[in-house]
């Protein structure tokens, strides 16, 4: 009598864990998947920056030189998770549907000045010429200005939030119910 009852019982015990949708991915597979997701720069800001260069010179209150130029240029800033630093993933010891992920901090991945988009409004050259160096210097400072502005507008927070959202959606679809951010 004992032996036949053992058959369905063992079957039941064996099948229950297989049938419930516990996530079956190994930590290595999960890490690879998450790193693939994070390879995307998650946020892009585009700027149409206006650059003005103006220089007036005078001698004994008499103007001797005046140079002015006003132009616009497109600059793009991309931010995402810096994958140079490690991503740590750990399953929860007590709850297999829970996962702890520690992401590296977000970073600005690219600041690109597209010089082909320069549009000049006006140029004034009286007694002095505007040199290529003047443009380059101003473009470099525009780049820095834009980078600071993007950070002030929250590009890094947005990049982190979007990366987390994407990871959460994918892990939830893979069967995880809870994603805990930060070390366990």
């Amino acid at each position, binding site marked *: 009598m004992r032996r036949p009852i053992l*058959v369905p019982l063992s079957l039941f015990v064996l*099948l229950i864990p297989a049938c419930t949708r516990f996530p079956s991915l190994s930590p290595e597979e999960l890490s690879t998947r998450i790193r693939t997701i994070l390879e*995307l720069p998650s946020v892009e800001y585009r700027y149409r920056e*206006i650059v003005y260069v103006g220089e007036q010179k005078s001698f004994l209150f008499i103007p001797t030189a005046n140079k002015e130029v*006003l132009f616009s240029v497109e600059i793009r800033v991309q931010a995402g998770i810096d994958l140079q630093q490690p991503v740590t993933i750990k399953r929860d010891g007590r709850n297999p549907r829970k996962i702890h992920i520690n992401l590296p901090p977000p970073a600005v991945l690219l600041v690109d000045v597209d010089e082909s988009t320069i549009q000049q409004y006006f140029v004034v050259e009286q007694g002095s010429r505007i040199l290529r160096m003047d443009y380059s210097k101003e473009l470099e400072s525009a780049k820095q*200005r834009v980078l600071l502005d993007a950070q002030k507008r929250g590009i890094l927070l947005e990049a982190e939030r979007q990366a987390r959202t994407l990871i959460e*959606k994918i892990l939830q*679809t893979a069967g995880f119910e809870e994603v805990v951010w930060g070390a366990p």
Partner: protein
Amino acid sequence: MKIRTTLVVLVVSSALLTALIVIDRNLFPLFTSTKRTSISQAIWERVRTLKSLQTVRYVQKVVFPYDFLDPGLDFDVILTILRRGKGTVNSLLSSKERDYLEARELAERIGLKFTGRKREFVVVTAQIVVGTNLESLKIFPGTKESILVLFPPPRIVDLSIEDPNPATYPYPDIPLSPSHWKLVAGFVERKLREHPLDPSILDVSRAQMSRFLTTLFLQAGFTEIEIREDSSAQYESLKPGLGERMNRLEGTNRTGKNP
């Protein structure tokens, strides 16, 4: 007695096994296609909870009035057209000519010197957020590991004009009263809303959206993923077989839910 007990046990076991199979069809490759459909459905539901995805933030600085004064246009010619023509300003002038006329009138009204040797201008900063409405996403699972995803065209989610900060305004200072500033800001905002967004911005938004969805579905195990902007005219240009399937599906189900 023993035979009867064994039979009962076998019946109970098979009933239990059937029940478990019904609970989770993942066990058998026979049901692979059903599983794929449910996964794509699950992803769709999860993505929809995001409502919209902000893909690009465009900080556009506009130079007033020069951005509206097309150098190819002549103010005297515009005035001649208005004097000789019959009809409204809108019917007589092109969009660029109207911009020119309005910007010039406003610049003169607020006392901005923009011709001759002295060139005054005001830089207005607008923030434009471009995004995609994910609630309108359509997902059509194909056979085995292929899927077709249609996303709605990117659009302006938010447009706002920022108040200038005198401490950080890096351009020559222009004496402008608050009411004059309000006029300029209102004019720029209206013009930005009237004109279509730069195609390159929309292209960036589309590329971001496509990358986002491709990553999502690749991670879900699909290998053949086709991501397209939602437009009924596009169905003909799809890969052989997929276009036909799309038309068939679209005819029966426009909600994007799996048939």
